[in-house]
């Protein structure tokens, strides 16, 4: 859909004999403890063609926003830099960077070539005095310049943390306008940082809780366009949607894809009772997964597709349960005080994020898949609906403020509970779903 041509996405060696330093001393271990952000220098990328000046500056700023936005890195302002780069190939003067306590240095160049933006960059470990990893070169159409910046930032983040990146990704969510009793909702799509906002539906019907397919090319969501909640499958590329087959007299909602993208698990309400079902994306009869008079909803697959975590009030209050993906007897995993809902399995498989209500407050939290090591990451009047970054390190969620003038927005927090931030530039918003890393 994004007609992007990352022409040379695979690592391209720049200059001979610059071997990758796989395990250099420049490394951040992302742990639960409070860390001192790693100071880095990011001189504005060198404009290598006369028409690339603005692009070089813009790309540099997006890379800095990505890195500093994690809370793991702190940029040393360019005004403090001693060495200046007039060319991408200028040799690094390590003492100049040591003198201002930079630990990492990113040097880059931007050029316009045949209608494409070409970015190349190198990452240097200042204290060991060597390059970290190979230089790389990426190219894309000018309209996709932000993606180039995110790709560069992802590589830098990965090399320093040893984790996968998450900047070149998007979020599908519900855009909200108007007061609480007349709220207008429409489906929207933006980059993870709120840039490139686009609307996928109009606001003629309530829409809820969109979810990306594993490949990021389709979205499942709940719409009231028939007057009743029903699940719709939307092709993100051409914005064409199809209502899933309906059992007459039922409501269907809370859909989510299986990790192979072939099935959909969802809630169906019939006669006041809500249970979990699954169906093939290509159609066919629904298969019932739970059969209880309680509310079963908010299902989410494990990354290997073998299990489903969901919420049920069969014990009397909302709690979290895990069952086989084919149904069968579930195991309860939440036992703390309060109510637990909207569980989402982390892409790494190790944690489950959830919404917790206790003591009149809402929290986003994480726990291991056996329910142990519960940690609450946030607290507010109303936090709900977590979604994982592609690398499983950051959670985005909805925060709504109280009262007549209350509104909803999207926030991110990392899984240690640090770096709580609002996603700016998208207005009122709820029900985020984070895409996989873009191809």
């Amino acid at each position, binding site marked *: 859909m*994004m007609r992007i041509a990352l022409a040379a996405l695979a690592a391209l060696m720049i200059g001979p004999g610059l071997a990758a330093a796989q395990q250099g001393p420049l490394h951040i271990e992302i742990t639960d403890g409070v860390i001192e952000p790693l100071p880095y220098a990011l001189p504005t990328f060198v404009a290598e063609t006369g028409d690339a000046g603005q692009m070089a500056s813009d790309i540099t700023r997006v890379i800095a926003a990505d890195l500093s936005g994690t809370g793991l890195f702190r940029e040393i302002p360019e005004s403090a830099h001693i060495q200046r780069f007039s060319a991408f190939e200028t040799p690094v003067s390590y003492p100049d960077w040591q003198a201002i306590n930079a630990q990492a240095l990113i040097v880059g160049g931007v050029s316009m070539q045949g209608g494409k933006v070409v970015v190349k960059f190198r990452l240097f470990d200042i204290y060991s005095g060597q390059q970290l990893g190979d230089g790389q070169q990426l190219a894309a159409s000018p309209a996709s310049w932000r993606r180039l910046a995110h790709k560069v930032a992802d590589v830098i983040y990965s090399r320093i943390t040893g984790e996968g990146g998450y900047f070149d990704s998007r979020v599908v969510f519900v855009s909200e306008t108007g007061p609480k*009793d007349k709220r207008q909702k429409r489906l929207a799509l933006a980059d993870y940082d709120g840039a490139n906002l686009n609307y996928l539906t109009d606001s003629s019907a309530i829409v*809820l809780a969109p979810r990306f397919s594993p490949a990021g090319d389709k979205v499942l969501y709940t719409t*009231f366009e028939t007057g009743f909640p029903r699940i719709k499958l939307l092709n993100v590329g051409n914005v064409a949607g199809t209502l899933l087959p309906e059992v007459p007299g039922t409501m269907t909602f809370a859909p989510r894809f299986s990790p192979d993208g072939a099935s959909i698990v969802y809630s169906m*309400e019939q006669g006041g009772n809500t249970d979990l079902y699954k169906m093939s994306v290509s159609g066919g009869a629904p298969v019932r997964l739970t059969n209880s008079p309680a*509310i079963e909803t908010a299902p989410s697959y494990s990354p290997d597709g073998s299990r489903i975590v969901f919420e049920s009030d069969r014990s009397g209050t909302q709690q979290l349960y895990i069952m086989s993906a084919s149904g069968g007897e579930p195991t309860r995993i939440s036992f703390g005080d309060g109510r637990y*809902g909207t569980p989402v399995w982390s892409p790494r498989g190790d944690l489950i994020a959830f919404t917790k209500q206790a003591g009149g407050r809402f929290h986003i939290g994480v726990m291991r898949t056996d329910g142990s090591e519960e940690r609450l990451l946030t607290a507010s009047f109303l936090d709900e*609906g977590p979604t994982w970054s592609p690398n499983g390190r950051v959670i985005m969620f909805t925060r709504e403020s109280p*009262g007549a003038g209350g509104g909803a927005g999207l926030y991110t927090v990392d899984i240690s509970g640090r770096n709580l931030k609002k996603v700016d530039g998208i207005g009122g918003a709820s029900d985020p779903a984070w895409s996989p890393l873009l191809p």
Partner: protein
Amino acid sequence: MTFAPKALLLLTVLGLAACNNPDKYGAGNGVVDPGGAYGDGGVSQGSINDPNSPAYFNQKIGDMVNFMVDQSTLSDEARATLTQQAQWLNGHTNYNAIIEGHADEQGTREYNLALGARRANAAQEFLISQGVAPNRLRTVSYGKERPLAVCSTEECYYKNRRAVTVISLGAGS
């Protein structure tokens, strides 16, 4: 973003489709719905003193029953209201009803949808038990999407935890 123009094009089409296909249970077809999800549709409700008028049903009898936190059990007061609703519906068989279930904002979105469905179903079952033909009734849940009152205190929350019987002139019943 090469798809932006396509998106605009499609939104135009969607907009047209919405105009040609108004919500069949919404406020576009003579539904009178002061407590429902879409408010008063602007259609005349008749006089509250005319026992045959929608205004009488909505306001004199009361189109709405309320619930306790997390509950779908009908209170004595709710049963009394629903009993009168059933009597009115039994005497006015040209009307059908959609029963909307609603929840307050103190809950997660999916759970509240399911909870609203429980409430709507509880009201529907009661109406059926009072002789209203099942094929005249249908339920829908709005979860916490359409609060009636917007403050964030129990006073408003109680109003929002409701099942609303939205009557409309039905064809062929």
